[in-house]
């Protein structure tokens, strides 16, 4: 997100979801779209059916790679090499859009020098992707005008995630694939309202609408609006907060998030949580973090309250109350208003409608959006929407990049923080599956999904499994320098040799006990996609007994 704000001036999908089916080329990198965003996956399938070319870059074989024209099966964490090499080809072949660069960008001059050493041949050595495929896909991307790039956490959940985004931005800017329908750069959001949380200022550096906290004019505006002095000091990002928990951070308020299951290097976080003075939780279910809490507020779920979610394509859509919350549970906004008041603030809001109105009033990007206009226009409104005459924006950067000039940010490859070594010779990545969601707080309480996919598993290449005498369905320990979890082995060529993969949804086999807590320097996003690991078969007497043992059923629909 921060990467895109820096280079384009807006951290969101440049296109609309409905435009994907009309693209002539899709470059999907670090996104298992059909599992993480099934509906966008359908759009991609439509595009391919229509004849669009599909390039998938992913260390694993995924559903989409089965219908892709090219599957660039790169080694985890080598994205910058791949992308720079593609840029190198485009540059060398003279396929850069010089007019676009001259009119719409800055910083191009520095690019060629950096790219010079990223030849496809060298890239093949580092990434494992054949040089010929890098060439072909680079040319195909450069030559196809309606070319859209989609990415997800496979790009951002790295210690160099922002570099990856810069490398992608460079590709887009150098080819001018921006500012029209079905072309651009599209981060697909993992949560229903990641976009909205960013948009409305739940970040240490921005007020709502991406207005910087250290901008004196902005600060003055909000001091005036809210009637209190405000700090111009950017706060800690999430990764820093978690690392400082128990150190400089002594009190936490956590809403709608199970930090113990979701944040990396859990052992250290738990130590920190034991040391904090005070922890307030607000959630719909008890969770792994509950045992550290001093206060727990029971909250309403999405079906029990009114509000707005902002989707990946910047569409502000209504959430509507359908049923009453259980027991004494209340909507988060109600609780927050009362908590702020109890802490001495005078928040004079009546409900979501006027909270939203206040938010939009001070954020120029959203100034034309209100509950009334959302109703009136029928299908939500995509920001930017600066006044009541605007129907919103289906794709960004039409007639000029929002930042003013698109910024080239040449990047050098930096290895992931932890690489495979003799002791931990495998590279572990984590990710989502279709059948569960995040910490599975909801999906494991759904009647059917745990039947389809009951338990955690680790995907292991047959060769790696063979060397460890592991068979399909065996219980194994997955170990890293930070911890150990126990789950079943799934022998599959879906992963490449030397790589292992597991879903992060399962509390009893928490992938986050294993992952490193090194975050991206800019965003703080943790490196969930690469760490060094080892897998060992668990002898039968130690293997867990009971339910599910005979019915090992990963529920994954694609298994090479």
């Amino acid at each position: 997100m921060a990467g895109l704000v820096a280079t384009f001036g807006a951290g969101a999908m440049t296109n609309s979801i409905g435009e994907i089916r009309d693209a002539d080329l899709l470059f999907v990198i670090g996104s298992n779209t059909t599992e993480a965003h099934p509906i966008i996956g359908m759009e991609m399938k439509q595009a391919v059916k229509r004849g669009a070319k599909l390039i998938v870059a992913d260390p694993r074989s995924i559903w989409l790679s089965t219908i892709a024209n090219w599957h660039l099966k790169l080694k985890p964490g080598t994205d910058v090499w791949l992308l720079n090499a593609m840029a190198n080809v485009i540059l060398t072949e003279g396929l850069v859009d010089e007019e676009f660069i001259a009119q719409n960008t800055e910083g191009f001059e520095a690019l060629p020098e950096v790219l010079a050493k990223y030849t496809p041949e060298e890239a093949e050595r580092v990434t494992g992707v054949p040089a010929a495929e890098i060439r072909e896909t680079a040319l195909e991307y450069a030559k196809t005008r309606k070319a859209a790039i989609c990415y997800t956490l496979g790009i951002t959940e790295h210690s160099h995630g922002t570099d990856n985004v810069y490398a992608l931005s460079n590709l887009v800017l150098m080819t001018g694939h921006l500012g029209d329908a079905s072309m651009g750069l599209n981060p697909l959001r993992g949560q229903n309202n990641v976009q909205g949380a960013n948009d409305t200022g739940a970040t240490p550096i921005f007020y709502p609408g991406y207005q910087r906290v250290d901008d004196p004019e902005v600060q003055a505006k909000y001091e005036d609006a809210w009637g209190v002095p405000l700090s111009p000091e950017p706060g800690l990002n999430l990764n820093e907060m978690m690392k400082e928990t128990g150190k400089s951070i002594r009190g936490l308020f956590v809403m709608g998030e199970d930090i113990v299951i979701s944040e990396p290097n859990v052992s250290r976080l738990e130590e920190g949580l034991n040391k904090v003075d005070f922890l307030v939780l607000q959630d719909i279910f008890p969770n792994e973090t509950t045992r550290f809490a001093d206060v727990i507020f029971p909250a309403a779920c999405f079906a029990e309250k009114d509000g707005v979610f902002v989707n990946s394509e910047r569409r502000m859509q209504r959430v509507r109350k359908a049923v009453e919350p259980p027991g004494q549970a209340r909507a988060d906004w109600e609780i927050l208003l009362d908590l702020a008041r109890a802490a001495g603030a005078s928040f004079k809001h009546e409900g979501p409608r006027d909270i939203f109105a206040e938010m939009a009033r001070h954020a120029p990007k959203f100034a034309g959006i209100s509950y009334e206009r959302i109703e009136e226009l029928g299908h939500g409104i995509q920001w930017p929407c600066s006044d009541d005459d605007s129907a919103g924006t289906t794709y960004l950067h039409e007639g000029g990049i929002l930042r003013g000039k698109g910024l080239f940010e040449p990047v050098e490859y930096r290895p992931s923080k932890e690489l495979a070594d003799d002791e931990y010779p495998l590279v572990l990545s984590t990710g989502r599956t279709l059948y569960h969601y995040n910490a599975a707080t909801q999906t494991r309480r759904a009647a059917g999904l745990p039947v389809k996919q009951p338990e955690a598993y680790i995907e292991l290449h047959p060769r790696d499994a063979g060397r460890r005498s592991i068979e399909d369905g065996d219980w194994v320990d997955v170990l890293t320098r930070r911890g150990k979890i126990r789950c079943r082995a799934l022998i599959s060529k879906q992963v490449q040799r030397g790589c292992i993969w597991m879903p992060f949804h399962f509390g009893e086999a928490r992938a986050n006990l294993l992952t490193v807590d090194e975050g991206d320097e800019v965003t703080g996003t943790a490196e969930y996609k690469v760490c060094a690991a080892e897998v060992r078969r668990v002898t039968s007497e130690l293997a867990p007994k009971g339910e599910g043992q005979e019915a090992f059923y990963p529920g994954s629909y694609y298994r090479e």
Partner: protein
Amino acid sequence: MIAKTGEVTVDGVKVEFGQGETLLDVSNRLGRHVPTLCHDERLAPAGACRTCLVEVEGVRRMVPACRTPASDGQKVTTANERIDKHRRLLLGLYLTDHPAGRSDCEDGAPCELHAMAANYEAPTDWTPIPLTRAGRSEDVNPYIQFREDRCIACARCTRYCDEVEGVNAITLAGRGAATTISTVDSEGLFDTTCELCGGCVAVCPTGAMAEKMPLTAGAPPERELQKVRTTCNYCGVGCQMDLNVDTQASDGKGQVVKITSPPPGTPPSDGNLCVKGRFAYDFVDHPDRLKVPLIRREDGELHEASWEEALEFAAKGLLRVQQDHGKDALAFVSSSRCTAEENYLVQKMARVAFGTNNVHQCAAT
């Protein structure tokens, strides 16, 4: 708008049409109602249900409007004695191979066939034919049930599974009157490529592809439920969906007993949903839900508390940290799962009530 490529006359009214438009598109645009059972605008037209037959001047046989491209100068009739008779008799014939009682048939979703038969006054007293379509009663998947007696073999479900979802889990199987919907070797859906998106349920015009949970739970039929349009709470696509609420349930608090999709063409999801969006709603009523505020008392245990006490306890606790360790000793973790308004309030509270910019949502990237 559509680039004009010609003009057709529909029931005496001249109308322009654009590239790729069918007689059905043109008729619909004119407000001439042509009935369809196998049509879905997301799917390639099949012309199999035969309800949309219309007359084109100079063509002896009636033609399916759904798959007949409009061509310049065509004169189309969408209703006359022959067409009306055809619709009436065809629908009467359908009913001989379908549960006769409308209210029995509509125990789950509304039945388009019954509605259409009533609309066109189709005969309802024709002798039924014996059911020869095979079902898959042994399929134990928790979500999707195929009820073969209701199936009209329109193949909306199989075409959706192929053309939209792209997983090809289900197919037309068998031949003739025994033509049914099956999976490979009649396996349970769990043992196929099915991703349980439930699109087959959504597109089925007759409730043959039905959602199991509300049927098993004995939920009221869909027509008695209140539909509340909202946004899905899982991934970032923001699919629109209708919560179907049994308003009488849970002592009048209401209960979500089913989720249905909005019509095709509704952004951003074109009326599609995935397995989580369509089926994973039962967490709402899960007994584990937190229902009462809890505070940790001196014994180190969590105890139930009143809202007043819990709020005061929480505010004081946070303010004490602020006093003891400074404003930036507090951290506020907001949620990408909560609404825009709630995220706004968290950051405003952190900044206004507690004076810190240490606020970040949980899914920062």
